[in-house]
């Protein structure tokens, strides 16, 4: 099931790229084509990783790492705040 959904997403992405990228390159919009390609490749790579069930660390861990000191500081500043 997972493989099917992943395959579907990949197929649609590749198909869309096959239609749109040549158009962009023909119009000499190299920058657009580059951004398009980079975003699509990152997206597809992530899609494959989740599709074969590899557990990536959640991006929230970075958030916690940055903001935990701030939150702790606020908690110390305003005791009794629940």
């Amino acid at each position, binding site marked *: 099931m997972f493989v099917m959904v992943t395959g579907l*997403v990949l197929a649609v992405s590749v198909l869309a790229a096959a239609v749109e990228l040549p158009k962009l390159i023909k119009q000499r919009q190299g920058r657009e084509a580059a951004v398009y390609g980079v975003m699509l490749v990152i997206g597809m790579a992530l899609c494959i990783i989740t599709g074969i069930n590899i557990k990536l660390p959640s991006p929230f861990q970075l958030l916690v790492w940055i903001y935990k000191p701030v939150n702790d500081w606020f908690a110390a500043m*305003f005791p*009794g705040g629940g």
Partner: protein
Amino acid sequence: MERISTKQMSVLIIFFVIGDMLLFLPSNMAAIAHQDAWISGLIGLVLGLLFAWLIFEFSQCFPGLNLVQIHKQVLGTWVGGAVSLFYMIIMFHDAATQVREIGDFVTTQMMTETPMRIICILMVIMLVVAIRSGLESIARTAEVLILVFAIMFIAVILLLIPEAKLDRLTPVLEHDIPTLVHGSLFFIAFPFTELFVMWMILPNVKANEHLRKDFILASVIGGIAIFAIVLMSLLVLGAYLTEHQMYSTYTLAKKIGIGHFLERVEAILAISWLLCTYFRMVIYGYGFIKGIAELLQIQDYRYLTIPFGTLTFSYALVIAPNVVYFDSMNPYWVTWDFTYFPVIPLIVYLIFKIRQRAMRR
């Protein structure tokens, strides 16, 4: 250049403010302020509207410029670009979050046998289609669907009134002021602080003398709607059930039963929640894609929609291992939001004023 009217902008703001908070806010707030969560809600409503007003006034200092252009003008290409990129991260993250929330909700409450990916992919397809059709189509769709949303939402609130019991709010003011303010942070951060996305949309609104009034009025309507949900949740379920339910509003709607002919109306609530979460997602997605296009000087943001869809879909699955972990991130998320609204724009505004003064001399 796409143009929307102030009325369409107000509709988008109402959808944005209510957004996914329709389902999450009561339990988040009741977890801190318990039966006094409605007082927290009132504090949050006042402070949140103040924030909404400040967000509007900030954008009025730079008429006709969107977020990326403001930072470029004030901070220069590189620093401004970096700050804008920081904003793009939260917009993308939030768009993917909405997708994930819909996936989590539908697979835990309504279609328990369906894999979450299916729901996510459906939402992402709708997101891509909406952004590809442009802001005008998004705004017109919202204008039509707000009626459906309003009727369903008001119906749910009215049908709940027979179940409400005032004594569930007692003892009133059991908690001290810091606790109440702490509870209100959720009410300020998620609906109102995140209105900074409107900086991407405001330059596309047709100039009109009641732009300010409409912006504030829309925020007030959205704020009152989510306040009503918090209050009803406490009145009908009581503090204990509200704080221990993941989706307390959904449980709330299950309580509706008039005679034996009007029952199981929770689907109505689920649909209205899906509607406003969908528009929140679309606004975030639009803000992100427009910002990235502006940042990298791409002529037409529509080219980027398909890669954006692939990226959002896979990021929504990576974002958190499960729904409990997801919910435990809320305190950090609140602080994260506050960096985006009062902190960074304040610095930007000060630099803008200092530079303006230096220019005059």
